[in-house]
């Protein structure tokens, strides 16, 4: 297992549990035990994570990554002692930042729920391999992360246009789309991870899946109104 295996969701889970600080140790940059250089992925994730903490209102220094080899025990001890001191100085999570405990927890969980979405929209930056410290600082900006959360996209199926073809429903990776044959499809916004698979899957001639940003998603069509009455069938019936 590589430090690049450390998922953003692990870090958020720790903070959500009330941990005051999270430290990630990785191999020295450019010295990969594999050939994948995954420690850069870990670094990118931490850089993003720090901006997310800021967005939430937490001190970004609560999250730290350092790179060292197995032979650098002293360095590791120094770093951990230093981090321990720092976290003690920062005090209990949320308290020193002036955020209420429950409010903080729900804020973190809200962000954690968006982890899949964050991975998709920031994919390129998360896989990048930076060469120097100056680049690290600029990889993610506070403004960028604030915008990311401000402009978060939701997917919605326009009931007027949905032909209940089942394509998006079958392709949804998290089974967030309800519906069936001749039943208008509806996205369960709680389950949806905003991957956009439905948007890509919906045949262009229908164009039923819409992206919504900055405004509330229309309420789902009541169960009773979801049956599609096909014109051909109407004809047959008359």
């Amino acid at each position, binding site marked *: 297992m590589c430090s*690049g295996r450390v998922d953003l969701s692990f870090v958020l889970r720790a903070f959500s549990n009330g941990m005051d600080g999270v430290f990630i140790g990785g191999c020295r940059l450019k010295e990969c035990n594999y050939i994948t250089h995954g420690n850069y992925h870990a670094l990118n994730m931490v850089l993003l994570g720090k901006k997310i903490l800021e967005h939430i209102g937490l001190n970004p220094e609560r999250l730290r990554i350092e790179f060292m080899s197995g032979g650098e025990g*002293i360095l590791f001890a120094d770093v951990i002692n230093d981090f321990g001191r720092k976290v003690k100085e920062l005090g209990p999570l949320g308290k020193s930042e002036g955020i209420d405990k429950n409010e903080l927890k729900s804020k973190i969980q809200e962000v954690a729920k968006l982890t899949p979405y964050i991975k998709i929209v920031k*994919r390129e930056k998360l896989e990048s391999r930076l060469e120097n410290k100056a680049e690290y600082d600029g990889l993610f900006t506070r403004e960028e992360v604030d915008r990311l959360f401000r402009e978060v996209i939701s997917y919605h199926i326009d009931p007027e246009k949905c032909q209940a073809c089942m394509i998006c429903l079958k392709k949804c990776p998290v089974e967030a789309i309800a519906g069936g044959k001749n039943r208008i499809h509806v996205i369960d916004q709680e389950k949806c991870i905003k991957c956009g698979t439905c948007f890509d899957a919906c045949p262009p001639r229908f164009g039923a899946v819409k992206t919504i940003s900055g405004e509330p998603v229309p309420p789902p069509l009541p169960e009773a109104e979801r049956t599609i009455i096909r014109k051909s069938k109407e004809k047959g019936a008359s």
Partner: protein
Amino acid sequence: MKGDYGYGKMQNVVTSMDYERLLCSTGPYEGEILRPSDKKHPHKTAWIQCVGSRRVTPGDNSYCSAVCCTYTQKQVILTKDHDAGAECTIFHNDIRSYGKDFERFYQRAENLPGVRFIRSYVSIGKEIQESKNVTIRYATTEDGVKEEEFDLVVLSVGLNPPADYEDLADKFGIELNSHGFCKAIPSNPLSTTRPGIFVSGAFQGPTDIPESVFTASGAGSQCGELLDYRRGKLTQERIYPPEKDVSREEPRIGVFVCHCGANIGRVVSVPSTVEYALTLPHVVYAQEQLFSCASNCAKEITDIIKEKGLNRVIVAACSPRTLEPLFRDTLREAGINQYYFEMANIREHNSWVHSKEKEEATQKAKDIIRMSVARACHLEPLQELDLPVNKTALVVGGGVSGMTCALSIANQGHEVFLVEKNKDLGGMARRIHYTLDGRDVQAYLRDLVEKVYRHPSVHVYTDATITEATGYVGNFVTKVNSERGVEEIKHGAAVIAIGADIYKPTEYLYGEDDRVITHLELEERISKGDEKIISAESLVMIQCVGCRNEDRNYCSRICCSVSIKNALKLKEINPLMDIYILYRDMMTYGFSEDYYREASNREVKFIRYDPLDKPLVETVKEGGTSRLRIAVTDYILGKKLAIDADCLALAAAVIPSAGAKEVAGLFKVSLGPDDFFKEAHVKLKPVEFAADGVYLCGMAQYPKHMPEAISQAYGAAGRVLTLLSHDTVIASGSVCEVDQKKCTGCGACISACTYDAIEFRETRQGKKAVVNPVICKGDGLCNARCPTGAITLKHFTDAELLSQIDAALGDV
């Protein structure tokens, strides 16, 4: 150990071996450094290097013991680790940082606060009556002679031949060299003078760990060449009981907490961790053990699994790195899938680092165990794969290392494909003409090349390039483009022996004045009898050209010996020639120290220079002739010298082969910080890579002398044989897997996996990622990149890791 330096007379003078025991947690004071006289912590410690080595006085050894510089640096680092305020002073001669990563290690020790490296011969002054402190007299160029007081003095003693060496040699009928170590035959450093008896490790001479490891493997390979017809005749297959399916049972966890002698038990209250473990959910059994890894304790684990009906086992002990395979085996012996085993590291992560905080350490041990218990509940049974092994080997690089390795593998009944990028076999050795001990390299090389071409199982491809290498351990497919056209070679193992290059200097007027040449060019010209060289009146050599600097932070290991070799050869031809060697530290480790001494005796002048005050080379016009003038500061004379030379030979660095990056990419192995190939473990796995089935030898790993390259080549052959002699190889069960339903075909996993273990496959639901489990190395990057949670690293799943994170907080 003689009574030198007050040893045996003054209580606070100890040898480095005594000190090593003091540092050790199983040592006399359980890892506390206490000095003999009053059992107090020494604050000021001095090390004296080269004790008993590099001397011609009776009872001392003339050779360099080769390991003391670096072990002293290790002791200094550990001392600073014990007591950050400790003052460490090392009195040394040359710092012999000739090994891989040694230069960096030296810098690490030197850069620690309170550490002084002082280049000076020393003598012991006196023992101070009240304090029992010891004084040392030394001299520096800045301050002259000084006497300083130390709490403790450590003598860095060298290595001797084994005590009973003569008796041993008599019994086996083998010869010894003049130093009392085993005499090797000139063409084969692992063979004694008696055919069929081989030598490895420090009986060859003072040797560091990696050389000991690969010479052992190499001697094994040579035994294999003789005994191949008997291979496998005495082996017995291990039979395990059938595996029970417990995946649907409620977890029944057993926890075994190890004392590790005193290593854990001295710090952590083991009984209270056992008691605590029993309060954790699903834990049905817990006990302590003195050494869980001892065979009786391992057997006990197996027995208790059966007796108590355990379906998951946690051993709270050391790092899983070494012993996890052993404990997994205890589960297999009990008919439980081995991936139901979990190891809690309460030694390296706990007792060793918190030895002074016993209560907190006990609490931390409980935390670690609780996290392991949480994870264990989520563990899943995994199956390992038996992969067939193609019995053929591919050796990349047809130098001395590649050829030696190829022949040793072929002599044990395997087909070998030997791929060389140049028109002729031989590599760097084609440019070397004689050795330090005067042997003819070209004759040796001709003989070796002939053996390779004559061997029916060795297939040579010259002028060859590798265009593609795919596959995995036991089943590689490599495309080779050569005069024979493009050929696809199927092989089970690959050996990287692509050698190294020589730095082309840009300094000291090289390329501008044709009297400035490299040490290799000098050797070529000497061997051709070039009049200009052999009748020169004055010749200067500059060491460390292009290495031990910011660009290449390593020592090229061989250049000092090469320069001495050339100097001795020139003195033999033209005894009147003035030869100067401008050096930083003479790296004539081991027996080559004798040649250093010989050169010195033959009036070769050695002048040490400082890297901050390098020699200056210029051409000077005087009386109508142009002279090559080298200015250097002589620290012993304390003045600047100007030497006019007819020839300047630069000891140009050995640099990684230009093809190293490409070859590393093809075979999916990594390079170290200096771009030499990175072995799986610098000490213990010196010829293996982290990638299974790919091996390493020769200068591709690091600069080395020919006998070392030959030994390492045999060593690599030995490791190749341990793979190729089996019909199948086991691939780990901890690999990635895709849940096709969740895969959206976004490709994030594919771009993360530089092993190319993941590919798209078309399905009715569009393209889906598929992992090839035998290529997957289990790093889990794809798992972290996947937005939908479709791809999972088995044995390190989200559920397993999140459960540990949740458990970390405990009941707070």
